[in-house]
């Protein structure tokens, strides 16, 4: 995404009359001597306390462009061995840096002189992902010490929209950030998930300075069934106005949408479209099929024969090279799917978004950093697909993208000219029946009721099938049995599997037919003994369930990954010569939500000699407010409580 935006904006600053160098900007930094220990909260059990975090983004003109000096300082109190391990190595990401200008670190102790160390210990390297780092170890870190370090890097300015997360899993006592620019460049900053003091500092008359500050920020920690990204205080900023060129309200979604669309269309020229058409011939797309079927066939062809990689290389977004090498980037796959749909006269909208687990796409904020990944939306069938997700197909996108906004870019005609128009729209979640895991279980008692033979049929759809169904196309024959048995093992880990039969495996069936596993297994753990009574652990037949038994104060709303439901039908005959004394234990009803969503029920009936138990569990509200957490907990724990149900068989 980034490369495309930059492509559109080169030469933006080329006529500026004054410029500076990084050396002018960063005067020799000296440590300030505050009583840091006075800031430490003695009552806190947090491993780490961030006493101060300072950041500056200082923008300045060079002869050719706009550059940025990024300064970062952190003063950190280490309260445990874990904290020492976490903070005794400092990594500085220099991937986009022109130069590491300066860095230094020191360790402050309660009862001895601080330890300062110079810059000879710096090491550098590149990670597998291609990010380069400069890094060093903090000398002298120990529990109870405070480490204080800073670094400054010079880099190509990032002004078209970015964001940074302020809160962390540790409390922050003082947060200070400045956006410093030449007087004619006006930056704007907006927070989400909390308040920040954002104000203009007019004391520096040579620069425009925007201060972003906060005090006493609590730690933000993950909780089960929640989305921490909705709680992390995050600040978005971008260049809003350039008074030197009298440009205002810069970097809007409108102009970007036009550029993205026009760029895409110019890439998909006649020759390229002809190449796509030729390659697509092998798929034999049925011209009489519905749009949905055609789109699926197109996607099956390209995703089935071309690998999507995270790597970045020019050829990965060039259609001709992709078709030859069969490897592409996310944008490369977007081009193919967009172009192929166009060949079949199916309109596609380009959608740009970001996972809601990274940062939610807030519609009140216009910022290019929210536009990280591509989706395609097809209005004629009202479905999305995710080009990057190799195993996903139209009708299911990775769950990080649902229940979130996106920038939708559609084709519009302006006079004789075709261009793109963008608007922020909602990407909805799927209904509960999209992702089901249903099972039909038939139990036979064996060996004088000391063992059971379980015959089980499972059917999985949507997100509940994605971890199994498509992988059959890629699994090594050596690993096939493990994959076939995986869902059975997740229900009964120690089961002695007698046989497994799979139906509807493979990507071709994903979202079309449920992934079906028919199995039979023995599991003597389902039988316990109390004198001459037999205890049948019927509740374990549905497999171990998530639980929220250990109580901790809840801090966040409930956020589920996706809506999903379960239907389980368990049938068994009470063994001959026995009677069951507590069948009524099978009746459970936990429906704390009057709205009828998010519930667990279990009920039994006796049909001839069979006991049939129906267990239903649905999670069809993606988000529940914190006030309803206890109710949600009841439903989650109800499923785990069902695991505890033990039927007593006594001799007649």
């Amino acid at each position, binding site marked *: 995404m980034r490369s495309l935006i930059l492509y559109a904006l080169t030469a933006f600053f080329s006529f500026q009359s004054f410029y500076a160098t990084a050396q002018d900007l960063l005067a020799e930094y000296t440590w300030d001597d505050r009583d840091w220990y006075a800031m430490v909260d003695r009552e806190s*059990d947090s*491993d780490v306390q961030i006493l101060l975090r300072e950041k500056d983004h200082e923008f300045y003109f060079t002869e050719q462009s706009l550059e940025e000096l990024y300064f970062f300082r952190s003063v950190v109190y280490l*309260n*445990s061995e*874990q*904290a*020492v*391990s976490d903070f*005794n*190595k400092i990594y500085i990401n220099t991937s986009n840096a022109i130069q590491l200008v300066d860095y230094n670190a020191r360790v402050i102790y309660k009862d001895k002189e601080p*330890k300062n160390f110079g810059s000879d210990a710096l090491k550098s*390297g*590149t*990670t*597998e992902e*291609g990010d380069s*780092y400069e*890094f060093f*170890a903090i*000398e002298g*870190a*120990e529990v109870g010490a405070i480490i204080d370090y800073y670094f400054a890097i010079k880099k190509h300015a990032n002004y078209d929209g970015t964001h940074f997360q302020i809160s962390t899993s540790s409390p922050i006592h003082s947060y200070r950030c400045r956006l410093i620019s030449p007087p004619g460049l006006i930056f704007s900053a907006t927070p989400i998930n909390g308040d920040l003091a954002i104000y203009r500092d007019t004391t520096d008359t040579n620069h425009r300075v925007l201060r972003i500050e906060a005090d006493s920020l609590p730690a933000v920690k993950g909780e089960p069934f929640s989305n921490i990204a909705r709680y992390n205080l995050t600040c978005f900023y971008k260049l809003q106005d350039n008074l030197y060129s009298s440009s205002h309200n810069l970097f809007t979604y409108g102009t970007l949408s036009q550029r993205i669309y026009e760029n895409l269309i110019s890439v998909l020229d006649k020759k390229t479209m002809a190449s796509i058409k030729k390659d697509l011939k092998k798929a034999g797309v049925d011209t009489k099929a519905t749009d949905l079927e055609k789109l699926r066939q197109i996607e099956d062809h390209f*995703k*089935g*024969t071309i*690998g*999507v*990689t995270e*790597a970045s*290389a020019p050829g990965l977004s060039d259609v001709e090279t992709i078709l030859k*090498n*069969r*490897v592409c980037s996310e944008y490369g796959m977007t081009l193919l799917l967009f172009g192929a749909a166009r060949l079949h006269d199916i309109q596609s909208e380009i959608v740009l978004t970001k996972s809601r687990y990274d940062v939610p796409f807030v519609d009140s904020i216009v910022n290019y950093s929210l536009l990280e990944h591509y989706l395609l939306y097809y209005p004629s069938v009202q479905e999305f697909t995710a080009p990057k997700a*190799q195993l996903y197909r139209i009708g299911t996108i990775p769950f990080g993208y649902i229940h979130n906004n996106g920038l939708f870019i559609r084709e519009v005609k302006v006079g004789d000219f075709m261009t793109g128009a963008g608007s922020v729209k909602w990407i909805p979640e799927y209904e509960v029946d999209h992702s089901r895991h249903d099972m039909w279980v038939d139990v036979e008692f064996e060996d004088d009721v000391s063992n059971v033979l379980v015959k089980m049929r499972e059917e999985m759809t949507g997100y509940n099938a994605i971890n199994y169904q498509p992988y059959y196309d*890629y*699994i*090594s*024959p*050596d*690993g096939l049995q493990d994959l076939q048995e995986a869902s059975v093992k997740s229900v009964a880990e*120690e089961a002695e599997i007698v046989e497994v039969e799979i139906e509807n495996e493979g990507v071709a069936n994903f979202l079309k037919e449920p992934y079906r596993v028919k199995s039979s297994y023995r599991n*003597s*753990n389902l039988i*316990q*003994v*109390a*004198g001459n*009574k037999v*205890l049948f652990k019927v509740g374990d037949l549905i497999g*171990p369930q998530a*639980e929220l*038994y*250990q*109580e901790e104060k809840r801090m966040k709303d409930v956020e589920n990954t996706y809506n999903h439901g379960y239907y389980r039908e368990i049938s068994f005959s009470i063994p001959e010569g026995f009677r069951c*004394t*507590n069948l009524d234990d099978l009746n459970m009803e936990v429906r704390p939500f009057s709205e009828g969503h998010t519930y667990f029920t279990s009920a039994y009936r006796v049909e001839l000699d069979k006991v049939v138990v129906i267990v239903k569990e649905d999670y069809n509200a993606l988000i529940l407010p914190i006030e309803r957490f206890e109710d949600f907990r009841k439903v989650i724990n109800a499923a*785990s409580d069902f695991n*505890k149900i033990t039927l*007593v068989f*006594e001799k007649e």
Partner: protein
Amino acid sequence: MGVFAQTPDDEFSRLKEKYPKKDYAYTKFNWDLQLSLTEDGVMSTLMREEERMCLNGNGGLTREGSITYSGFASLNEKEVVTMIPNGGKYKKQKVTGFTEYDIGSGNSFYDDEKTIKYYWPNVNPGAKQYQKVVIAYNDPHFTPSFFLPPYIPVNEGSFKLTVDEDIDIEFTPFNFEDFEPVFSEEERRGKRVLTWNFNGYEATKYQKNNGPELRFTPHILVRIRSFEGKYGAERVLTDASDLHNWYCSILKKEEDDLSEVTAIVDEVTREARTDLEAAQLIYQWVQRNIKYILISDGMKGFQPEAASVVCSNRFGDCKGMSNLLHAMYQSIGFDSKLTWVGTRDILYSYDEVPTPMTDNHMILTLDLDGERYILDATHSRLPFGMPSPMIQGKQVMISHDCESFELQMMPLVSADENQIVDSIECWVHDDDVSGKGVATFTGFSKMMFLEGQSSSDANYLKRYTREYLLKGSNRFVIDSLSFEGDDDPNIPLKVNYTFRIDDLLTQSGDEKYLNFNMSLKGFESQPIEKDMQTPFQLRFRTIAKSVATLHFNDDEEVTIPENFSLENELYSFHVNYSQSKGQITRVAEDLYNFIDLYPTDFNDWNDYIKEVKKANRQNLIITVSQD
């Protein structure tokens, strides 16, 4: 024998039939190692030519390849090609986009290993991936060795070792119990040529619990014993004495300013009443104050950092930490000795193969008042004198100030020393159980618990402890928690807690049933997958004991299950129920008296687990008397 042309299709069908369950098979796995005399010594040049056919899977997914080499080597040549079937021949497509990285995902802070990554284009079933690299080493201590691939069969492959006349070498094969290569030796133009042929090597089935590949993958270690140099015969690694001498030649010789080190020793040992106490206090200071950071940078990977630097930095690797401890002990006249050892992943002993590949760790040996103590300060919670779990049972090389050395086998630490004893008392209310407990940890068990408990966050500590003490059912909840002995290495750790387990009982009429298996769930034995081909490994031998007492009312009667006992020399389980007025007690003990359990023992183990689980399925019956 005539050579006949084979089309790509023929080759694919033949290999697919031969290896129906594999994703790949090597059609070439040829390593050619040449050891040649040079002006300065010996140059080792390794040419690796590997070509494998893709037999399964979909070529649509990207396929990543890589070349990794250490800082002691230079990569002289590389060629990577996809060979795509094209009628009767293969069409070659060269890989050109190479990216290099040097920060690995491992746990080392810094090392000098480099990896070159690339993507193979067009790898569909029937295509071949060809890679050829030439890597050279100019230090005779780092002769490369030959490794077969752990999981991919080799249809055709060989290892050719060509040695100049004046180089004396030794080779040692490992893990060839299930596969015997065809070996030949000849003399060619004054050089010794040894060839091993591996055609038809089947490889191991991949399973996630396979453990370190070095422990089961067939490989041949090559070492140079000596060579005829400019000035006559030069010993390299003839025996362990050469390795010891070479290590000693690398140790830093400069004077070290030990003022901070001795000041700390004075401070730490001020209250010590005996030498042993002083030794323990110094050890604990290093354990708790010096953070272990793995650094492996060229020869620095073999050279301990100066004691003063480690002390001042408050971090170091195993060599730096051992060197600091050594300096501290020597400063008060204690007899300590730098000691090299290989972790348990490494199969070799110094007797068998005295090479730098035999070890990867440094510790310290302390001889004090007629006792010998093995000290590994890299584990912050390891009790004084215990070897760490990863080096127990291994041979160590103890240097006597580089004048001489001795090799010594370290014992495996007995299960008795690493116990967890969980004692609880509990009461029944309706269907629920609640009570209080004390879990006592010793030895490695204590070390393990405390190493994971390094946070100060109260909620984290509760969650962490709950995982350890989980019993009865997942409704086990800890209400209160305190620790004793966590800061004192000389006494066991005691975890005091109160707990609840709701819904543990089943009621029927006037009877209640309670499965009183209160053994810690995390320490219950589990079956081993039946087709596992590699040993099942534990970190250490241990005993997990559970003593659970249930109090009941005077108007209740309790029927207890039968006692059970099953044992052999590798493992055992005993459970005993006893009853006295108003209470019953269950005592269960799981003994794990092995570290490696071999595939030949898996059936017995799985049968044993079945019996144990059967015994644990017995319930108590609580009856309310009707009078």
